[in-house]
């Protein structure tokens, strides 16, 4: 399992963001930032993902989707909230259909603020997420060892 910390697979979901952060997440894949050279792959399948990148504040309709995607991911998993919307609701927090930050729905491990969050910051957030992932993995091992 230690391989996952070397080449993490990422799943990205847009929970009512303005798109600004989404395209920055995609921009990480361009030749300019090129995260694929580190083995980071953007996958659409929650069952293969290690890191859940989530942008935008959650709204009433997609909170179930977010929960479901999170539940489908195998342990250990890390959630990275990208953009100020995902962190706290940001400029949208007063909107009638917005619940608030992603942490109201699922536990968040890394917060990447910014509006829009820059690709460098997003990559940084993913790298931070890797540390958390490693810790979670060790914990999981210990638990299994004790059994």
């Amino acid at each position, binding site marked *: 399992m230690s391989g996952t910390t070397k080449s993490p697979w990422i799943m*990205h*979901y*847009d*929970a*009512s*963001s*303005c*798109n*600004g*952060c*989404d*395209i*920055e*997440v*995609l*921009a990480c*894949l*361009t*030749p*300019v930032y090129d995260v694929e050279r580190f083995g980071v792959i*953007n*996958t*659409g*399948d929650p069952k293969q993902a290690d890191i859940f990148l989530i942008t*935008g*504040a959650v*709204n009433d*309709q*997609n909170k179930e*989707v977010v929960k479901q*995607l999170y539940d489908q991911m195998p342990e250990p998993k890390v959630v990275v909230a990208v953009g100020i919307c995902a962190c706290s609701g940001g*400029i*949208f927090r*007063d*909107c*009638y*259909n*917005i619940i608030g930050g992603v942490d109201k729905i699922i536990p968040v491990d890394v917060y990447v603020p910014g*509006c*829009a969050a*820059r690709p460098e910051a997003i990559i940084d957030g993913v790298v931070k997420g890797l540390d958390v992932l490693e810790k979670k993995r060790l914990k999981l091992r210990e638990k299994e060892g004790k059994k």
Partner: protein
Amino acid sequence: MGKRTIVPFGPQHPALPEPVHLDLELEDETVVRAIPSIGYVHRGLEKLAEKRDYNDMIYVMERVCGICSFGHGWGYAGAVEGLMSVQIPDRAECLRIMFHELSRVHSHLLWLGLLADGLGFDSLFMHCWRIRERVLDVFEAITGGRVVMSFCKVGGVRKDLTPEMLKMVKDTCDMIEDEMRKTGLVFMKDTSVRNRLCGTGVLSREDIIDLSAVGPVARGSGVNNDVRSANPMYRDLGFSPVLYDDGDCWSRCMVRVDEIMQSLDMIRNAVRDLPDGDVSVPVKGNAPVGDYVFRVEQPRGEGFYYVQGNGSKFLSRARVRTPTNINIPAMTRMLQGCNLQDVSMLVITIDPCISCTER
């Protein structure tokens, strides 16, 4: 008759970065009907006009969508200026056009990349996005923001450009044009691309008029509804609508390729002919009772901005009707009778911006 099945598409799907859900009714592998359901990105921005005064509301409006964010800012500012009877300086108008066209270039390049990705042509996707980053570099150098720039404000633009910045804009245009000459050819000539695009997802002229589709989708079927033709400054900068007649995916693609080239020309003309003077006028006081409508040609089509004042600093309504919103019926018509494998590509050809649609 084959067996009927219903295949859910989305809301989370690798082909689309944004959540939209389609129920695809299939007969064998042919789509008989596609039923869209939206609401996954709805935030309720229009209501915020009651809580933010009209000068601050522009920050919210810019976040209707992060891709055409400049255009939304312009549309809202234009509507408020109309309501308040403010005339903005020519230099500000010209700078707005320059920025809007730069946004169009990056938005179309982004779309070309997504289309290539939908085709499974990854290297082409990379090339389009590599070129696109040049535009973002210009934005970052001038405004400090890459996607959401806050450059537009009610009454003009926030800052003037120095001669060095103008030179950077022009150099970037030259560079992009150079690269687009090669990359555009791939979309135009490459057999594997043409095989997928030519003749798929055909919308006739009548369909377009029936369903009132807008933007490159309409222009790919030979219907001209480009709002830019109504703006005299655009005409001076050398604007003429780009039209293709076939109505298939390839036409829609070529409209966008040609529009990139034309926008680059217009930006260079704007740099050359930039009028002197101020870049903004102060806008103060309460908004009068009344309403105003302003239209902007977004990269995806006509954007429609409506504001209603009630004599206070807060507007009673700020309404946006965005291009994707109006293009969704065209998309469902296009999907009828297509092959399952083409669904994601067809959805991409209307350049869906769900964030705009649902606000």
